[in-house]
């Protein structure tokens, strides 16, 4: 990374960029770790349509302690812009990334990776035959673009596109909003001829949801939190609501001013949570308070960042009456049988 970039990118973000560059994932974990969430799931050998898992859900277990450590440093008024080599950041902050990873996976508490299993379950129930690239799934590289290192992003996008083509991929069903937006829009904007169809899980699910008879186990009120990149960037506002309205026992409730294109950001947008962790938590609590006003029992959303933020917001508000879950999980729970 050029010297200027070293100096001007906030360290939390620079750390993520360096990991993508070196290890093809946001936390710098070994390649084999990538497909751990999918152990035991049978995927189609045909890879013309693939499920794209991305980094966010599977690594959220590690992202959370990283954010917390940066947050603690921030609160202690230690300047988190530590003059250390970026790759050593977690170590300097007293964090053992690989250790946390093996612990969470061994203890079956792999952060939000259960969401990925739920999403695949739903897609299968919808009759889709999907493949998965496993440990060969390339990182989308989106954070590089958001951080500002576009040259690196373009190079990365070119490599990833090549990996998709090599595997014979024609259609991608992606689940992390920022990965989806990158694959859908940013690749072609960055000089890559990305002739692969990219869909978000919600688009596919909303299209076919009527073919299933979904019923949530209990009668609940659900407020839907629109992730910024899903709602405002990609316009997927109606689709999740179509899904929610089709599930028996669920009553969809909306906030007065702040839903759909007017949804309030959870406070994790644009990498904000690793730059200003404490303000980010306040924003999360504010967003949860807005959603709680609807009287919802469940806050559903579809983004690993939003899930993490909203959960921390609930904790800060000491609200244990509301559950935050991913729409994929909510659908999986509503599947018959």
């Amino acid at each position, binding site marked *: 990374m*050029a010297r*200027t970039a070293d100096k001007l*990118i906030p360290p939390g973000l620079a750390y993520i960029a360096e990991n993508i560059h070196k290890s093809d994932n946001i936390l710098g974990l070994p390649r084999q770790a990538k497909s751990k969430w999918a152990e035991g799931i049978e995927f189609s050998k045909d890879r013309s349509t693939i499920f794209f898992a991305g980094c966010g859900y599977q690594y959220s277990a590690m992202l959370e302690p990283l954010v917390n450590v940066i947050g603690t440093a921030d609160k202690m008024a230690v300047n988190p812009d530590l003059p250390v080599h970026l790759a050593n950041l977690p170590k300097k902050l007293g964090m053992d990334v690989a250790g946390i990873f093996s612990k969470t996976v061994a203890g079956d508490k792999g952060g939000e990776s259960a969401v990925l299993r739920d999403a695949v379950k739903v897609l299968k129930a919808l009759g889709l035959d999907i493949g998965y690239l496993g440990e060969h799934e390339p990182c989308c590289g989106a954070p590089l673009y958001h*951080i500002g*290192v576009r040259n690196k992003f373009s190079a990365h996008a070119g490599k990833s596109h090549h990996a998709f083509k090599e595997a014979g991929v024609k259609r991608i069903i992606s689940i992390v909003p920022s990965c989806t937006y990158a694959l859908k829009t940013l690749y072609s904007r960055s000089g890559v001829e990305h002739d692969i169809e990219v869909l978000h899980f919600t688009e596919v699910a909303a299209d076919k949801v009527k073919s299933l008879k979904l019923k949530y186990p209990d009668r609940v009120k659900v407020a839907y939190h629109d992730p910024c990149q899903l709602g405002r*960037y990609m316009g997927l506002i109606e689709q999740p609501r179509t899904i929610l309205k089709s599930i028996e026992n669920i009553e969809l409730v909306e906030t007065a001013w702040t839903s759909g294109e007017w949804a309030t950001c959870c406070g994790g947008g644009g990498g904000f949570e690793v730059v*200003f962790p*404490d303000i980010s938590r306040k924003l999360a609590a504010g967003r949860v308070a807005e959603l709680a006003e609807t009287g919802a029992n469940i806050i559903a959303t579809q983004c690993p960042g939003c899930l993490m933020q909203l959960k921390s917001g609930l904790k800060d508000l000491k609200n244990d009456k509301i559950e935050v879950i991913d729409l994929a999980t909510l659908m999986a729970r509503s599947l018959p049988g």
Partner: protein
Amino acid sequence: MTISKDYRKELRDAAGNERIRLALSRAIKSYRENTKNTLKKFPHTVRMAEEVLLIKEHSVQHMRELAEEASRAIEENKGKAYIADTAEQALEIIGGLVGSGKLIVKAKSMTAEEIELREHLEEAGNDVYETDLGEFIIQKLNSRPMHILSPAIHVPREDVAKLFSQITGKDLPPDIATLVATARQLLREKYFTADIGMSSANVVAADTGTLFLIENEGNIRLATGAPPIHIALIGMEKLVPTLEDAFKVAEVTWRYANYGIPSYVSLVSGPSKTGDIEKVTTYGAHGPKEFHVIFLDGGRTELAADPILRQVLYCLRCGGCLYECPVFGLTAGYFGDKYFAGIGAVWAAKVHKNLEKGSSMAYTCLTCGRCKVRCPMKIDVPEMILKLRNSIVEP
């Protein structure tokens, strides 16, 4: 040292300040309600905003020609017009016109903030009064504006009462009507004893050289009407080709600026004149005898060359985006430089050339994009921020 330590501290302190949060949450609620009602009452505004965007897109590509055309018109109207390439030039021109030892009444102006005009004039030994109530409070508090239209948005009435009590030596209650009356009394005679009145403009018609001044308080009318000299400093992006265009820009501006119907819109094209005695035109009848207009480039032409960042020049300064920014909702103008929030980051880095502040602000923006939904010009702030980050780290 990507995010400056002072900025980080300021921002964190502001986010922990319950008064800011309370003041802002009230302001946001009332802004949303008012705007909803006003757009319901005048539904043509939305379509008109689309038209205005086309006018702005065209105008920003022709700022220099428009400034020259407007200058010719103003000179024909017997005013004086100047084009300043830089902030320094603008200060030099205005400094030359003003000199020292003058009493100046000033309308609120973001462009004046941008070049720190008041500070400059004060250093030259002039007595400058901010006449907008919010700006007057800010000036007396020795603070800085926290919103482009409501600069004192973060100051509750109790603090204003304390401040005005100090100024007047009376014990004033925190009653808003009393405080407004006090400000009126404090400023009243200044308008009529001032040597110079200063303003900016919300939009300028190049064909007639007409400045549009939108307000509710009436301070701009007095400040630009009573003193013998009127000096206006205007960013070049405010120029549009015709009077008809300017009316449209003005209407869209006030509607999104939460004015509904503003109490006053002043159209000023030249000095005051009369021909009532023997049809001999004589300047300086009841209003100013001299009218000076300074159009400021200050990096705007350079910005207009960037297909993404030029969007900042379409901004009508309605302030709507600020009410939708989650970070602004917690921190007010501390997420700011001369201008605020995401769009302010571009101003800081590219116009004010404060790279440290600009980059700090660029990484403060959530890129959530709700501001864009509100913006009548559909300015894509996330897209600009990502471009700005890129231009900072890969120059």
